[in-house]
């Protein structure tokens, strides 16, 4: 379990901003920090990693203090059991894929763990390549495999998919989910992509201007109505076609397109690109926009 209670004054383009965060993350849980850019998400992640020092507070992981301003404890990143995927991956350009993944490992375990991770991440063919010969998606996989190599207690992901196109993003979201299930690290993801939040995480903290505005499960946080439903999916409106007196709304749910009929009245809240919740009570599906 990670207990984070930190504050830090940040100097942003709009003047000073106080980042205040207080929350706990259960072991093995996949949690997202969601919010607009400049909200302090990455800074918070860097504080957990030990790359940025909070002004005050505590970070306690499984009962062990990693940071405690009152007791002057501040563990260096080298001594924290973390794996981090940076936004631009930060792969070592002079090393091959296999060397990048294995660099931190002790010699006697290196080849076994590296070959396992290469296989799990589907990188066997690329083991001998340098990072500059890889595509964005491949680099992302290498960065993830490298972060998992030491079997860290906490996996920190700083918008790892933001540089990729939609299709690759969806594919890697699945992969991330698979890897999380396999290795079960406590995971903290920074994201400003709502579909990522829904697809990957069990809990979400919404940050805005340095403060947590909402937290809970993604559905609790992002849908205003708490109706009991038979089934519910989150998706994105990709196309709207008028058909007589109703409209056919095409919604991207995961990688599938679902067609839902919407009335003129419902159409007033819908447009292409809008995030929606599709839910069904017994027979008729309901379609409603999600808060962002």
């Amino acid at each position, binding site marked *: 379990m990670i207990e984070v209670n930190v504050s830090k004054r940040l100097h942003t383009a709009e003047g000073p901003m106080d980042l205040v965060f207080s929350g706990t993350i259960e072991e093995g849980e996949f949690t997202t920090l969601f919010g607009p850019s400049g909200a302090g998400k990455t800074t918070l992640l860097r504080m957990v990693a030990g790359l940025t020092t909070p002004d005050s507070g505590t970070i306690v992981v499984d009962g062990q203090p990693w940071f405690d301003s009152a007791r002057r404890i501040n563990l260096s990143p*080298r001594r924290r059991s973390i794996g981090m995927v940076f936004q631009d991956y*930060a792969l070592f350009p002079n*090393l091959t894929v296999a060397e990048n993944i294995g660099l931190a490992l002790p010699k006697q375990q290196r080849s076994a763990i590296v070959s396992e991770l290469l296989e799990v991440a589907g990188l066997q063919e690329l083991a001998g390549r340098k990072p500059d010969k890889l595509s964005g998606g491949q680099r992302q996989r290498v960065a993830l495999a*490298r972060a998992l190599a030491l079997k860290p207690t906490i996996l920190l992901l700083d918008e790892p998919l933001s540089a990729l196109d939609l299709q690759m993003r969806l594919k890697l979201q699945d992969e991330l989910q698979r890897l999380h299930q396999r290795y079960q690290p406590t995971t903290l993801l920074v994201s400003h992509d709502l579909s990522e939040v829904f697809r990957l995480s069990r809990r979400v903290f919404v940050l805005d201007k340095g403060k947590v505005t909402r937290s809970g499960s993604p559905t609790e946080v992002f849908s205003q109505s708490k109706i009991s439903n038979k089934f519910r999916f989150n998706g994105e409106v990709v196309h709207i076609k008028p058909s007589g007196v109703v409209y056919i709304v095409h919604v991207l749910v995961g990688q599938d397109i679902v067609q839902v009929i919407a009335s003129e009245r419902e159409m007033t809240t819908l447009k292409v690109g809008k995030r929606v919740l599709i839910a069904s009570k017994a027979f008729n599906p309901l379609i409603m926009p999600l808060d962002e």
Partner: protein
Amino acid sequence: MNPDFTQTMILTFQVAGITTIILLVLGIPLSYWLAYTSNRSKAIVETLVSMPLVLPPTVLGFYLLVFFSPVNPVGGFLESWLNLRLVFSFEGIIVGSVLFSLPFMIHPLQSGFGAIPANLREAAATLGISRVKTLFTILLPNMKPGILAGCVLSFAHTVGEFGVVLMVGGNIPGQTRMASIAIYDRVEALDYATAHRYALVLFAITFAILLLVYIVNRRFARMELT
């Protein structure tokens, strides 16, 4: 070939080679510190390192001469305890050259360290890789052009130095007479033919070394692009 000429040229390149190796060994930790520290004394150290760029070489040479003279406590200590005399000796011109060429090694290395994205060091830290291992496996291999530039500039600058060596070393054949001093010495003696020979060789070698650096650096740049 004139044995004096050969001896002087060999000595010149020995001094330059040894100076460059010493500078590389000293320069890596010093430039690492300068590139990444936020210590307040950084500005003072940077100033001291850059001083030889603007200071007349004779000033540096004069102070070294005074300091290392056996009648000075420092020079006396070195001589009585380490049996090392740094005035008018080979060791002396090495020390002088190292100090005088220091900025030519430190500046390229420091900008090399500075050009490496901070997140590579951070990534290494999150992976628990020690600073020393990070230096040798990640930082230095990614700043080869800077290392090359530092070595070549230090070497070429040492080959061409005059003032410091003349002040500290004098003009002892086979001991402290470097090519640039030999040129001066020959011109004084109106032996223009020998002076020409020294001058031409220095000119050609310096040109070749710098040309090599530019070609190699272009190849590095191209490698990074592809």
